[in-house]
C-alpha cells in the first residue's frame, strides 16, 4: 500500500512535466508571441514603443531564443513559483489565480459531494426496486440530465428565477458580501448560494453515476454471495447495503478518474454563465485576449488538480477493495 502510494507520488512530478510541455506547446501555438499582443495593447492605449525597446524586451523575456529554451525559461520560473505577469490585468498571474482557486476547488468539491450523495442512494433504490414507478421516473430524469448541456440548465434556471421570481441567482454571495472580508456570516452566505451552481455542474454526472450504480448493483444482486447472505437470515436492506451495494461502489470509485476532469470542464462553463468567482472564466478571458501565460498557468492548475484527484481516488479504491490493496 505504502509502496503503491509512494510510486504514484513519484510519478506526479513526471506527469506534471509532460503536461507543462504540452500546455506550453498549446499556448505558443497562436501566431505572434505575447510581446506582439503587448505592443498591440500599448499602442491601442496610445503609448508608442520603439523598435529597439521591443528588441530589448524580446531579449529580456527570452523570446529571441529557440522554442525549447523558451520552454525551459518558463519552467524555471514556474519552479520558482513565478507564474508570470498578466498582460490584461497587469498583475502577477499567481495572485489572480490564487484569489479564485479556493472557491474553484470548493465548488468542484461541493459538486462532487452532491453528485455522490444523490447518485448512490438513487442508484441503490432503482436497482432494488427495478421496474417500479420510481425507477422509471429516475431513468427518465437521468436521460434528460445527460442530454441537457449544463450551461443550458443554468440559463433556464436563471431565466425562471429572474422572470418569475425577480431574483438573480448569479454569483456565490449576496451583493453585500462580495467584497466583505471572511466571516462566519459570509461563509453561511456562501453555503446558501453554492449548492445551486454545484448542482447544475453535477447534474450530468449525477445522472451518469446513478445509471452506473444501478447497473453495477443489478449485476451484484445476482451474485451467489447475495444468496449466501440471505440464507444467513440478514434483513434485506441491511444485506443490500453491506454486501452488493458495497461491491457496486468500487467500480464507481474508479470513475472519479474521468469524472473530475468533466467536473472542471462543467464548472468552467457554468461559472461563466452564472458569473461565479472561478478560474474558469479567468481562463476564458485569458484565451480570448491572448493572455497566454495566464492561460498556461490555469491549464497547469487544472491538470494538477485532476492528477491529485485521481490519485486520491486510486488510494480510496485501494483502501476499499482488498483485492487491489493486496494485489499490489
Amino acid at each position, binding site marked *: 500500500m505504502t509502496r503503491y502510494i509512494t510510486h504514484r507520488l513519484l510519478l506526479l512530478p513526471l506527469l506534471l512535466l509532460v503536461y507543462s510541455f504540452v500546455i506550453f506547446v498549446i499556448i505558443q501555438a497562436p501566431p505572434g508571441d505575447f510581446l506582439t499582443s503587448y505592443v498591440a495593447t500599448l499602442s491601442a492605449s496610445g503609448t508608442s514603443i520603439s523598435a529597439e525597446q521591443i528588441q530589448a524586451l524580446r531579449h529580456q523575456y527570452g523570446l529571441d531564443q529557440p522554442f525549447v529554451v523558451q520552454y525551459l525559461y518558463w519552467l524555471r520560473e514556474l519552479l520558482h513559483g513565478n507564474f508570470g505577469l498578466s498582460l490584461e490585468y497587469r498583475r502577477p498571474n499567481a495572485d489572480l489565480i490564487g484569489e479564485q482557486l479556493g472557491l474553484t476547488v470548493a465548488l468542484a468539491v461541493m459538486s462532487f459531494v452532491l453528485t455522490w450523495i444523490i447518485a448512490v442512494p438513487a442508484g441503490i433504490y432503482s436497482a432494488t426496486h427495478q421496474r417500479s414507478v420510481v425507477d422509471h421516473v429516475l431513468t427518465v430524469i437521468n436521460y434528460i440530465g445527460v442530454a441537457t448541456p449544463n450551461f443550458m440548465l443554468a440559463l433556464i434556471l436563471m431565466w425562471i428565477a429572474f422572470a418569475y421570481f425577480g431574483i438573480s441567482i448569479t454569483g456565490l454571495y449576496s451583493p453585500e458580501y462580495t467584497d466583505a472580508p471572511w466571516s462566519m456570516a459570509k461563509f453561511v452566505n456562501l453555503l446558501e448560494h453554492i449548492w445551486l451552481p454545484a448542482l447544475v455542474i453535477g447534474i450530468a454526472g449525477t445522472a451518469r453515476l446513478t445509471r452506473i450504480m444501478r447497473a453495477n448493483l443489478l449485476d451484484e444482486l445476482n*451474485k*451467489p*454471495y447475495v*444468496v*449466501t*447472505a*440471505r*440464507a*444467513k*437470515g*440478514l*434483513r*434485506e436492506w441491511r444485506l443490500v447495503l453491506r*454486501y452488493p451495494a*458495497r*461491491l457496486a461502489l*468500487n467500480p464507481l470509485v474508479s470513475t472519479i478518474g474521468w469524472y473530475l476532469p468533466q467536473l472542471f470542464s462543467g464548472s468552467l462553463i457554468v461559472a461563466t454563465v452564472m458569473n461565479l468567482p472561478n478560474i474558469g472564466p479567468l481562463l476564458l478571458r485569458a484565451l480570448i485576449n491572448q493572455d497566454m501565460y495566464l492561460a498556461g498557468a490555469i491549464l497547469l492548475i487544472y491538470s494538477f488538480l485532476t492528477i491529485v484527484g485521481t490519485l486520491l481516488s486510486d488510494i480510496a479504491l485501494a483502501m*476499499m*477493495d*482488498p*483485492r487491489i490493496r*493486496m494485489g499490489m
Partner: protein
Amino acid sequence: MPLTHTATEPLLSVRGLHVAFRMDEGTVHAVDGVSFDVHPGQVVGIVGESGCGKSVTTRAVLQLIDPPGRIAGGEILYRQGDAFIDLARQSPRSRLMRDLRGADIALIPQEPMVAFSPVHTVGAQIVEALMLHERLSRNAARDRTVELFRDVGISMAETRIDAYSWQLSGGLRQRAMIAMALSCKPRLLIADEPTTAIDVTTQAQILALLRDLKQKYQTAIIFITHDLGVIAQMANFVVVMYLGRVMEEGPVDDIFHAPKHPYTKALLRSIPSLQTEARTVLPAISGTLPHPFNRPSGCPFHPRCTDMVPGRCTTLVPALRALGPRQAVSCFLHGSEAEPA
C-alpha cells in the same frame, strides 16, 4: 444401512410443491408437484440432471426464490416443537423466515468460489451470522468462529479467519462455508452440490467431514447432487427428479439395488464402476433434456424412455405411487394412477 427414524415425525415435509417462473416467453414450471420428507438426523439426497428443479426445490424451503419465480402451490411443513408451520405461506422477508434462515435451516451453496463476498474477510461473514442469531458479542463470536474453523479442519484457524475468500484454496473455502452453515447449529442443512466445483481428492475429504459433522451436530441434511456415487456414500433416502417432478424415491438401498423407474435405471447404468471393462461405451440416456418452454405432454420422461407405452405415457401424467413402506415411483409400468388433468 438401517433406517432408524420411521417411527419419528419428519422434521420437514414437502407436499405437492409447485414453483413457477413467469416470463415474457411463457411460464416455466420448474418444480411441478414434488413431495418428500426429511427426518431428524437423516440425509436425503436429491438427484437429477441440471435443470431438473432440485436446487429450486430447496431454495423454496428457504423462501429464497428470486422473482419472477414464486411458490405456486403445495406445502412446506417445518416442525417446530410439536407444531408444523407451512413455510410456503410465509413472506420471504418475514421475521419468521429470517429467524429460521441460518439458525434453523442453513445452506451450503453450490460454488464456494463465489459464495463469499470478496471484500469482507471470511471470518467477518461468519461472525455476522453468530451475532445475529446467537446474540453473541463480537469477541465471543470471533472465538466461536475460530473453534468452528478447527472443527471443520482448517489449520491455522486464528489467521485464516482474517483471510479473504480469494486467498483460500477451493477446499478451504468450502470448509469455511460449512463452518458458516453450521455456526448456529442448524437442525436442517441444505447442501447444494457442495462438492461439484472441487477436485476429487478434496471432494472425498469434504464428504467425510460432512458425515462426521452430521454425527456430531445431529443435523438433518438435504444433499443435492447429480452424482449418484456421492449419493451412495452420503444419503439414507433418495429422491430422483426429472423436469421438476419426482420420478422415484426410496431408501438408498432400494434405489440402488431395486430401482423401478426407467429413468432411475438409466441413471444407474450410466455410472462407471470398477467392474466395467476398460474402453466400453457407457450407456447414455438417449435424447436431450427438453427446453423448459417445451415440456413434453404426458410423462415428462416419455420421449427418452425405452419402455414408453404409446398413447398412455404420451398423454397422461403418472402420479407418485407407494410401492413399499417408503419407496414410491411415478410410472405407469408400476401401476401409477394418471394424475387428474
